[in-house]
């Protein structure tokens, strides 16, 4: 097997430069590449374009407060005040796109499709300046595959071959971002030995991953703790 394991976080992020375009997995706080984000803050790279569904309050907040992000491509940024402030003041460029479009533009990059036709956003400002087209009486918008330098994803388990398994809704955009950038860096909660994972149950085969490492810690914060009371 081709070994994708790197020894530490700095090796995992080797080659990261200012003004690069990054993909980051996660939905809210769920399944975000916590260790990679922390290292991006430490490295202090700036001028970044970040493709990520949300802009989690604290993690991205650090990147935001340090003004490391030039542009965000997201579908929902509702729960981040600093984000809202920078966006409305024009300090931060923001491209808001439909969530399904975001997922599919990642998948297109992964799968070698140059563009896709989606009905999402037709007739709205999201479609402005974009090609539209009718198929079978319905209108679609042509959306192009993302081009990114690095993709940072977080999985539950992985092995040295780069195979990944995700847990619960922490899966979200992570699988779609694998292989969608020039270099995919996967961090996992548990790096298991080769042959441990059932080949039938691998969500992302290692061919889509260039580097893998086990994260030091996972805080896994909860954004909205909703519970019910036992009778």
């Amino acid at each position, binding site marked *: 097997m081709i070994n994708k394991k790197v020894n530490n976080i700095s090796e995992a992020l080797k080659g990261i430069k200012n003004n690069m375009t990054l993909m980051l997995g996660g939905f809210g*706080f769920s399944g975000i590449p916590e260790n990679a984000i922390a290292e991006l803050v430490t490295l202090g790279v700036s001028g970044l374009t970040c493709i990520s569904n949300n802009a989690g309050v604290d993690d991205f907040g650090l990147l935001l407060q340090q003004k490391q992000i030039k542009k965000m491509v997201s579908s929902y940024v*509702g729960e981040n005040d600093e984000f809202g402030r920078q966006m*409305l003041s024009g300090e931060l460029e923001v491209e808001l796109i439909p969530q399904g479009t975001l997922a599919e533009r990642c998948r297109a990059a992964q799968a070698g499709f140059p563009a896709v036709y989606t*009905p999402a956003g037709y007739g709205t400002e999201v479609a402005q300046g974009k090609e539209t087209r009718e198929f079978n009486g319905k209108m679609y918008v042509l959306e192009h595959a993302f081009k990114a330098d690095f993709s940072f994803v977080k999985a539950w388990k992985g092995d040295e071959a780069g195979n990944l398994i995700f847990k*619960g809704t922490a899966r979200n955009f992570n699988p779609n971002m694998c292989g969608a950038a020039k270099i995919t860096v996967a961090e996992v909660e548990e790096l298991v030995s080769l042959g441990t994972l059932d080949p039938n149950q691998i969500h992302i085969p290692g061919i889509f991953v260039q580097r893998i490492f086990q994260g030091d810690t996972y805080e896994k914060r*909860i954004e909205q703790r909703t519970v019910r009371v036992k009778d």
Partner: protein
Amino acid sequence: MLDKTGIAKRIAKEVQDGYYVNLGIGIPTLVANYVRNDIEVEFQSENGVLGMGPFPFEGEEDADVINAGKQTITTLPGASFFDSAMSFSMIRGQHVDLTILGAMEVAENGDIANWKIPGKMVKGMGGAMDLVASAENIIVAMMHTNKRGESKLLKRCSLPLTGVGCVKKIVTNMAVLEVTENGFKLLERAPDVSVETIKEATEGNLIIEGEIPKMHI
């Protein structure tokens, strides 16, 4: 007038046996609590889960199991998790039978706006644009008027659109309305709300035919 719970209860009656349902954030989330027990329904959340159950008991929350509102949830036997691309395959591919979501404005032609107030509030569309562009059966859950008392059922939306000509039904604190070719057709009124009140609170064309029954909740 209905409160949010009342709206949710009324919408719950629209949910039929065998439906896969996507619930938006806010009032729509409440709908799950009031669906009849004798029918089988599965709730999908676009962040990647089908077969959602109730909130977890305290101490049993799992940061890796949330809904699109980022709330901790549980799953029922037969549930499944999947990635975002597959989640929107369900939505775009019209495998989800019913979409219930909130709105800031709905127009009499079925246009909907719910993601942006230019210069003021920009939360983003999340999955809403995908949902409204693809769903064949969309119900909007919202207050009939905004905080300033202005109608949210308009001739034409003033805010940036989420989708065009897609809303089929609206349930507000005052009424149940159907979007028709000629405007909002009044189907039912809240128990203590007169047709006249609804008329005043509706900017868009309101079609009133015959006696308007009271909602059963």
